């Protein structure tokens, strides 16, 4: 009996390992009969655009106070996906802020690794210092740019950070944007998955995520505090972009809403482009230093 249990455990580990090794530059969609783990592997794969070779967009972060007043940040983002086992590099990211003047010129270069236990390496170009600083990766529960998301929710959460349970399948009820009032993804067929953090205690006890059956992206996260009370939601809007005959899923908005404070943060991605022949030599410190402001 003991041997059988060990064998089953080993098979489960192998199965997990296999899905953790989804091949880069391929498109994956959830299929009927997949487990919660398999669906979430695809969801993470799509979140970081690992199906593509390169990604570019212009982003606007809008902080919306309870009284409706707004602050903005605009940035350019470029990503090259490497999936290179020889030096463990998964992808490199460049983010360059262009507005407002108080943050203009601020830029970061991030190296992300295939090894899920390895943190990002981050270089920060500070126009106010005129130099590049190697900085420690933010704590996973740090606020991302001061918005209603944590750092891990936007940039660093990995498949192995949570355990997953499929709790249902349904038609997504739709989400009315807190930014433009339009309804998104109404009646999109989706899997409902409960995600529990491996870390405990942690800033959330669980989240319920709705993953599209059609493109494998998560549309809504309902996040529960350590006492089990719903306190935040994160909506992600997706579009499909056809690139050389292939359908790439891309996030075109992320909306965070803190139900306790009423504060909202919206990130809109515009001019999204894939596979524009970005080369790795753009993702260097020289590019950071070209920011003059």
């Amino acid at each position, binding site marked *: 009996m003991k041997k059988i249990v060990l064998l089953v455990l080993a098979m489960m580990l192998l199965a997990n390992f296999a899905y953790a090794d989804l091949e880069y530059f391929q498109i994956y969609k959830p299929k009927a009969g997949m487990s919660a783990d398999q669906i979430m592997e695809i969801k993470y794969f799509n979140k970081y655009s690992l199906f593509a070779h390169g990604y570019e967009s212009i982003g606007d972060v809008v902080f919306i106070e309870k009284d409706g*007043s707004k*602050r903005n940040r605009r940035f350019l983002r470029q990503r090259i996906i490497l999936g290179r086992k020889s030096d463990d590099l998964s992808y490199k990211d460049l983010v360059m802020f262009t507005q*407002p003047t108080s943050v203009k010129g601020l830029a970061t270069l991030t190296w992300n690794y295939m090894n899920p236990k390895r943190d990002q390496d981050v270089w920060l170009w500070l126009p106010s210092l005129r130099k590049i600083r190697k900085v420690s990766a*933010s704590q996973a529960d740090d606020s991302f740019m001061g918005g209603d998301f944590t750092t891990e929710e936007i940039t660093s959460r990995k498949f192995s950070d949570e355990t997953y349970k499929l709790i249902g399948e349904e038609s997504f009820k739709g989400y009315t944007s807190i930014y433009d009032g339009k309804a998104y993804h109404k009646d999109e067929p989706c899997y409902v998955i409960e995600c529990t953090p491996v870390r405990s205690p942690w*800033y959330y006890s669980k989240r319920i995520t709705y993953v599209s059956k059609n493109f494998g992206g998560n549309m809504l996260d309902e996040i529960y505090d350590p006492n089990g009370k719903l306190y935040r939601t994160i909506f992600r809007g997706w579009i499909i972009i056809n690139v050389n005959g292939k359908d790439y899923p891309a996030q075109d908005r992320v909306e965070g809403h803190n139900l306790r404070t009423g504060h909202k943060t919206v990130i809109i991605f515009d001019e999204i482009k894939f596979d524009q022949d970005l080369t790795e030599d753009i993702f*260097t410190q020289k590019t950071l230093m070209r920011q003059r402001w």
Partner: protein
Amino acid sequence: MRIKLKIILLSILSLLFFVSRSEAALEIERGPIYGALKKALPFENLEFAGYLKNETALRIAGGFDEFMKEANIAQLATEYTFNDNIQFFSILRWFYDSTFDLENKYSRDPKWESKSNKKLRFPEKMQWLRECYLDILTDRLDLRLGKQQVVWGTADGVRILDLVNPLDYREWTLKDYLDSRIPLWMINAEAQIMLNGQLQLLLIPDYEANYYPPAGAPFTLRTVEIGSRAIPGITTMTINQKPAHQLEHTKVGLRWRSIIQRRAFEYTLNYLNTYDFASSAYTAFTVPPPTVFVTRRAERIQIFGGTFSKSITEGILLPGLAKGWTLRGELAYITGGAMNYGTDTSIQGTADTDQLNYVFGFDKSFFTNWQFSFQFIQMRAKAREDFNKARFTLLNGATRGPLDKVETTLTLMLATDFLHEKLKPQILILYGDDNDWRISPKVSYEISDQWLAAAGVHVFEGKEQHLNGQFDKNDQIFFELKYTF
């Protein structure tokens, strides 16, 4: 005191009035000033940004009754793009520090009307042109030609390898180095030799000495204050020798920067052949009449150094050990310079001296949104010439106080943010091994995308022979209001 408060309010309100009046006339995303400039300069390839800022500082001793700074600053940065490869960039900055008109001790003393002292009030000569350069960018080579500042090193708030540009010490080291570095005309070429390896070459024909404020100014260095004291019956003559603008005096810098990709370990190797921006003082005494000749000479020096930085992303030795820390270091060996020796306040002579300066830094994010940064800094000076070391020591160039063989400084910075990064408190603590302190807490608040406010305190503690202690009576409270466009 009341009049002074009124002047502060008046300055701030005029700024507000100017801006709000324009805002009513134009509603453009980046504000009325940007809108007006865009209208006046309708060039498609021209981009600009800037700010208006008020900086006010009051001396704490004596009941906040003395301005140490009451500056209004306007800055305009412009970028003109000829094409993807060629761009022109400039920063113009103008300021007026009314302290020298508001405070009687300056306004009633004719010495502050002299040409050389007026630069504390207004930009002098081309000082308003902060940066002005042409960028020629290619895949393999970036050329930056013109007036600019180049920053080497990884240290914060201390200059170990950051020695390409001289410094303006009018506010000691309280201002950001970006604002206090004196830009130089130079050729800056950076070649991409390999994916993560760049070689930088600097050719700098321009020379400016560090700027030290004259005796009586809010932040006069002790050495300047002592040097200005008249000795009865003796005349002091100062001769400044600085390198001429000739090819043979061109300064040369080289930096190799690389990241070892597998380990994400970054390092640089640096070499700079330059002139010391802090001139060495050589004294000679003649009679009759009794005269001291002080020759201030910029020595040709060579700097060899390097830096490293590494984030612990997996753990040192054991998985997870020290994960999340960033380690950084910087070292400079400076040869060819000279320092004064003697006893406190009294110079006996000048000796050729080598220096070895280094810093190790440790950074980490703690808890939620707390940044911690600690630095261990040592500076060692060794004379290459003999002098009576039983009686004399090398002297600190800033204070003319005795210098230890090893001077150790520790710095600690803690910073966090609240209210979605609108409110940012931070504290910087500097400790020198002779019980020399500076403590600088500061709070900044982002009122809107365009308005920023800040307030803080600088507290100095220590003996006058040491770097911060020399300003023991200069504790100040400061306020800043900035409008960006």
